[in-house]
């Protein structure tokens, strides 16, 4: 084996070690937090978040930049981060959310190898029945409304009580309205 090859292979192991170590911090940080030794204050909860799960090429810099720019371009003030194969659009402060636009940009992207597979939505607000009798989720402070479905084992909170809702967004594959399907309801902070 040549010296060059030996050195290169050694370098590969160094890289591999780096890759492996990069995977450990989340666990390590979690352990620190669980033991109560973490001194880091929690970041303020954003007004709303939209999580968009993608399938296809999300690994190379070219694709990741394209995905980011599509998300940021449609988010209208939202901050977009790409985490693995998931885009996270975050709104720190209250504003009317362009939820349909954000979803549409990624769902109808014309890249050859990228598709949107699921959308999750998280925001603070309250439940109440609308004038047409359907259950609606009204976002705090902006009053923006979405139809929402809550099914067992989740319990529908009392009308008007402020909660934090995590919901699957339904209906984006069609041309009709968007509906939220509650996955988690907890007291708002």
């Amino acid at each position, binding site marked *: 084996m040549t010296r*060059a090859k030996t050195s290169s292979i050694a370098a590969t192991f160094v890289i591999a070690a*780096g890759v492996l170590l990069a995977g450990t911090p989340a666990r390590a940080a979690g352990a620190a937090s669980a033991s109560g030794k973490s001194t880091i204050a929690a970041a303020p909860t954003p007004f709303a978040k939209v999580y968009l799960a993608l399938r296809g090429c999300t690994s190379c810099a070219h694709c990741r930049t394209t995905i980011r720019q599509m998300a940021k371009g449609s988010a209208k003030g939202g901050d977009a981060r790409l985490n*693995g194969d998931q885009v996270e659009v975050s709104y720190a402060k209250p504003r009317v959310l362009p939820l349909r636009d954000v979803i549409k940009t990624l769902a109808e992207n014309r890249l050859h190898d990228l598709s949107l597979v699921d959308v999750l939505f998280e925001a603070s607000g309250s439940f109440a029945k609308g004038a047409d009798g359907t259950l609606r989720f009204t976002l705090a402070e902006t009053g923006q409304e979405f139809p929402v479905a809550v099914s067992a084992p989740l319990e529908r909170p009392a009308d008007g009580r402020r909660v934090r809702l995590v919901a699957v967004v339904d209906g984006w594959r069609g041309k009709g309205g968007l509906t939220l399907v509650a996955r988690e309801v907890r007291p708002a902070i």
Partner: protein
Amino acid sequence: MRLVSPLPIRAVTITAALALSLVAAATARAEGDPATERRYSIHGYGEIHYNNPETGTMDKKAPAMVDVHRLVLGWEYEFTSSIRMSAEVDYEHSASEIELEYAHIEYDLAPTVSLRAGSLLMPVGPLNEFHEPPTYHSVERPYLEASVIPTTWQEIGVGLVGRASNGALGYRAYVVSGLDATGFSTGSGIREGRQHGVEAKAEDLALVGRLEYAAKGGLSIGGSGYVGGADQGTPGLGSVGVSIAEGDARFRRGALDLRGEVATVSIGNSDSVSAVVGEPVASRIWGLYGEAAFDLLHGKTQMPDRALWLFARFERFDTNADTEIGVTKDPLAERTIVTGGIAYHPVREVAFKADLEHWKDGVDQELNRLNVGVAFQF
């Protein structure tokens, strides 16, 4: 950055520095900084080939070859949601050659416009920036992409990358270090004029850009342009300018995948270059290819990413198409290749491939080559 023996120490130093930065940052994260959570992403790809006979020859009796052609590890680190660093290191030929694929900083100037600076993949052709092995059907990349467009091609520079029309229109425009004409040759064209950012000569710069538009219905078209100096102040060369024009199209719908590309390269003062390098260097290089592929499993499997592509490709290129008066053209530089084969994807990111190539050069030498390969990306 191509670093082959006898420069292993530099290669290891670069690799180790990149790895250590990753480890250091990961350690910081492990020490409890939630702000760094999810700022990293790791990716990679690779391909392992069997070629019979080996590549790079028209000798029918040349031996067969197996090769871990490339194993690439890459990562991205987000400083903030608007500033990030991205890099890849390519371990070629079972890690006997190390190449810095790219390493750049990206800074979002606006939601759909970003500044990029560093070692940049040149936006020339559809493959140079987007070359993960499962994305093309053949074992080897289309040869036009190596012989006319010198993929993988990276230079140091700065420029803009952006999108418009709701993401359908993409563009890149960079100022980069120019090519080095002392690397030009008859058989490889401008390929060895790439500087890879290795203490690159920067007497001559170049402008490079690409526009691509994805229409509704599965059609996408792209065009790239490059213009720059390449003499780099080398005595005896005079002023050497290089320009590249490229156009490509792809149509993908259902089980059908069609691709085509045409590219031409012009080299000014190529007679001076020929005299300096000691072989005929073209004043014009050109090439084209067309490929049709059909997914035999489309609509016949519950697994959305499983595919069995049957493909055929025709390509022709000439790295010595025209020469200046007084420089004798080499007919061996004209090559026609017909390739047919299959690529099976059990999942989108993994491909098992096999194909047959038929080569014919400008003096009617012919060669058949069998290629088998496995490719992956993550």
